[in-house]
């Protein structure tokens, strides 16, 4: 019995790899949609390398610049591999309420012309890699909270566990056919899946790891804000692919999303600058770029559901609330969220997801499957706000609790925080054996 099985096993394995399960047969690859989505994929990957790498690295101290960039690099290559091997399959296949299937493990059965039912006019391989870029940046974002003190080995393990146990489930629940999406939670490009998720995880990490040595007394001023400004530019432009590409097609919804996104970024930058000028006497460059990113993160879930002027308003709210979170709330609660992942992405993601439920305009999200589209509070559907809160609550609890557990486990395995003398010497030298001259 065993002998016969062993003889057949290789044959059946190969057959399984080659067989192509019938996915959406009525869907058809559209050239325009595919062209745009290829471009959007490039834009979103650029947001991590070098966008986020520069944005973050410019804000840490000189002795930690390379180590900070190493985190964005490592997130990119590690998450890419894991996503293709198993992450995509678990997030975006099947219609399980809790998790996907293993149908696309190692991308088996994904032929050149296969199409996912979730993106009916582009090749499935493109949908897979587009979603990959979202997973990459979400993982990379979390590291910002614990900049200057996380071991590289711990970060690599974090990439593996957190991607598979936190990002993949939430992505499935909201976008992959899971229970949050079916409950009616709307999240165009990642207010819950990306920003709130990363923000809460960052907060949990900041709590678990503790503050930087010298926090509150030493000079922890940014090494080179020009890097951060360049990073912001790449993030801002890349966001056209992040939000615009979430329309999964070259169409007017993508265009509207891009317009709302851009106005939110502009309004966010302006508002933060104005508030800082008023309260602190000078408009800082760091404030302008922080406001822009706050606006971008906040509009993300709402971008394909609201009108441009609503996007502008959301940007103003984002600039104000994230400014408050980064300057007052953080000091009041006493945590060291080094690069304000919670203050900008967490608070922004929360706010944007909620406001999507307030402002959603049915006409923008109208489709053959849903002719009226999704309507928000202002169009007479207050239930949407409740639904959004439900999505926010689930994301918050799962991300916070699982991140805490994951970090505790990694801490037991390899240790989380660098030794004190390494923290003082700097992570570039102590973790990577390199230094800026």
């Amino acid at each position, binding site marked *: 019995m065993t002998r016969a099985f062993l003889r057949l096993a290789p044959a059946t394995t190969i057959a399984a790899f080659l067989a192509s399960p019938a996915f959406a047969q009525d869907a058809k690859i559209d050239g325009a949609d595919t062209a745009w989505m290829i471009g959007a994929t490039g834009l979103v990957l650029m947001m991590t390398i070098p966008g986020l790498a520069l944005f973050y690295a410019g*804000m840490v101290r000189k002795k930690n610049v390379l180590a900070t960039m190493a985190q964005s690099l490592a997130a990119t290559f590690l998450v890419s591999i894991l996503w293709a091997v198993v992450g995509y399959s678990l997030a975006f296949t099947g219609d399980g309420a809790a998790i996907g299937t293993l149908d696309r493990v190692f991308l088996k059965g994904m032929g050149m012309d296969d199409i996912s039912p979730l993106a009916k006019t582009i090749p499935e391989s493109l949908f897979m890699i587009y979603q990959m870029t979202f997973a990459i940046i979400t993982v990379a974002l979390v590291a910002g909270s614990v900049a200057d003190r996380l071991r590289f080995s711990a970060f690599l393990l974090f990439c593996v566990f957190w991607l598979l146990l936190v990002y993949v489930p939430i992505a499935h629940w909201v976008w992959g056919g899971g229970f949050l999406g079916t409950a009616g939670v709307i999240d165009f490009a990642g207010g819950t899946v990306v920003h709130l998720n990363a923000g809460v995880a960052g907060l949990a990490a900041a709590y678990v790891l503790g503050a930087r040595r010298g926090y509150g007394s030493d000079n*922890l*001023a940014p090494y080179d804000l020009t890097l951060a400004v360049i990073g912001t530019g790449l993030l801002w432009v890349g966001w056209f692919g992040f939000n615009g590409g979430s329309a999964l097609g070259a169409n007017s919804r993508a265009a509207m999303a891009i317009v709302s996104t851009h106005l939110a970024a502009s309004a966010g930058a302006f508002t933060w600058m104005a508030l800082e000028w008023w309260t602190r006497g000078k408009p800082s460059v760091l404030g302008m770029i*922080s406001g822009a990113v706050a606006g971008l993160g906040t509009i993300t879930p709402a971008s394909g559901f609201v009108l441009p002027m609503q996007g502008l308003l959301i940007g103003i709210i984002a600039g104000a609330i994230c400014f408050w979170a980064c300057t007052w709330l953080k*000091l009041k609660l006493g945590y060291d969220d080094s690069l304000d992942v919670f203050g900008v992405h967490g608070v922004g993601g929360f706010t944007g997801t909620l406001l999507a439920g307030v402002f959603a305009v049915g006409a923008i999200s109208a489709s053959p499957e849903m002719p009226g589209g999704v309507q928000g509070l202002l169009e007479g559907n207050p239930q949407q706000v409740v639904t959004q809160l439900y999505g926010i609550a689930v994301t918050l609890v799962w991300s916070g609790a699982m991140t805490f557990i994951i970090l505790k486990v990694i801490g037991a395995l390899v240790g989380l925080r660098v030794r004190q003398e390494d923290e003082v010497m700097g992570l570039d030298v102590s973790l990577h054996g390199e230094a800026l001259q």
Partner: protein
Amino acid sequence: MKMVIAIIKPFKLDEVREALTRVGIHGMTVGEVKGYGRQKGHTEIYRGAEYAVNFLPKLRLEIAIASEQLSRVMEALATSARTGQIGDGKIFVLPVEQAVRIRTGETDVDAL
């Protein structure tokens, strides 16, 4: 021989160099240093985190001279480096035991 050490405001360097050239000084060593005295630093704010920067950038000049030149050099230095604002700097004079020009082997005053 004397070693004149002057701490001055960085933007004054060209003026000081020209004044010293006029009194016959044709060489010096300049270093970028940080320091404070009565001039307070400034405050930088990064997203709500305030840092008091106590050390200010200064330049440290070292000029080896023959003892006879001392009063002219002191006068030229002090006048050219002065702005009248707090933080103008200080001048110290130390004795020099020996001096050697490395290329030729000349010693003491011939080396200056």
